């Protein structure tokens, strides 16, 4: 009896270890993607890391249903986006964090004109409808093509194509003045 219980407990431990190893692999694969998705919304490194960690911790809880790599990435991206949008709205309500657009080191090294252009660009992106915004941001991360974005958002490729087009058109209308100043 004891031998049987011992082997059973050993099997449980082994299964748990396998899940942990599997999840660690997903974490290495998709952790940076989650962070970038959150950063695309928040543009604040600390907040983005916090949101991505939260999303990954939730993903671990649902990992038994998300063993498939594609499903895991899609679930993670959508959850991270939702959490990041919630955080972004809460931040805006609390402080109106406009200055954090220039928070990271890459942008602080830019010239004042480039920084201003960047700020206008992100403001224009923030003003996009959410469906167009997520398509634009995901297409800009890691060189995702339309098929990859459609998998991540779980929508047909035609829908992604349409949203990308409408998003680009809206961006062009908002940023047309930049073309005049840079000419």
């Amino acid at each position, binding site marked *: 009896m004891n031998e049987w219980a011992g082997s059973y407990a050993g099997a449980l431990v082994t299964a748990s270890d396998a899940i942990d190893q599997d999840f660690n692999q997903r974490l290495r694969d998709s952790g940076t993607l989650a962070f970038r998705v959150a950063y695309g919304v928040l543009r604040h490194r600390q907040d983005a890391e916090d949101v*991505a960690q939260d999303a*990954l911790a939730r993903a671990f809880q649902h990992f038994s249903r998300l063993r498939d790599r594609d499903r895991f990435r899609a679930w993670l991206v959508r959850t991270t986006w939702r959490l990041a949008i919630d955080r972004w709205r809460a931040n805006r309500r609390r402080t109106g964090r406009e200055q954090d657009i220039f928070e990271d080191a890459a942008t602080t090294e830019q010239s004042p004109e480039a920084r201003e252009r960047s700020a206008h660009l992100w403001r224009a992106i923030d003003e996009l409808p959410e469906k167009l915004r997520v398509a634009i941001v995901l297409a800009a991360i890691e060189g995702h093509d339309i098929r990859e974005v459609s998998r991540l958002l779980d929508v047909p490729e035609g829908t992604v194509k349409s949203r990308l087009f409408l998003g680009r058109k809206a961006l062009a209308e908002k940023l047309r003045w930049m*073309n005049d100043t840079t000419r």
Partner: protein
Amino acid sequence: MDERHDPLSEADERVVAMAEAEIRRALLVEPSLEFQAKVRARITAQPRRTFGSHPWFALAAAASMVVALAALMMFELRPGTPTAPIVATAPRPSPAEPPHAPQVIAATQPPEVAPPLPAGRPQPVRHRDGAVAALHDGVTPEVLIDPAQAAAVRRLFAMTQRGIKLPEGAGKEIVVAGELLVSPLVVEPLQVPAITAEQGPGSDKKSFQLPASSFQLPAES
């Protein structure tokens, strides 16, 4: 053609290309070195979900309980199930107690009324079970009560016969039907003293009489 789907102009294409390059550059960020360690720490800190902590587990348990209850109720209320009506007789008042009206606990079935048979033909003999016969032929008032209540009453009788004492204060909640009876309301006739004009100081019968001329109509011209 829908205006929204017009292709972008060359100038707009340039602006969009510039914007997308800026977005791509901005999103080429890497998380901190401790990022993965922090994720693992957060996972370790949160409680692991066990089988019983899944929300669907609670839902399934609740649903199975409802199904079991429904099955039980269906079994109890099935028409084929022989549920003999239980007759309870109200206890007779002891001589020490004041007599009051018979106690009616609950009536669940109206008494059967057989249709009148044609005269001259022999009436078929109908066997009724003892309980129903007792219901119709009994002298003392009898009522039908719910099987669940009857079971509770039976348990109570068994307990009292065995000499088990009820806990103190247990009987306080039991409402005896006799106590609920309202004593008849007696309305005594109002006695109004006759009013006469002679009452009161300085009254005079003559003062109530109108002159006869006041009832005469004026003569037509």
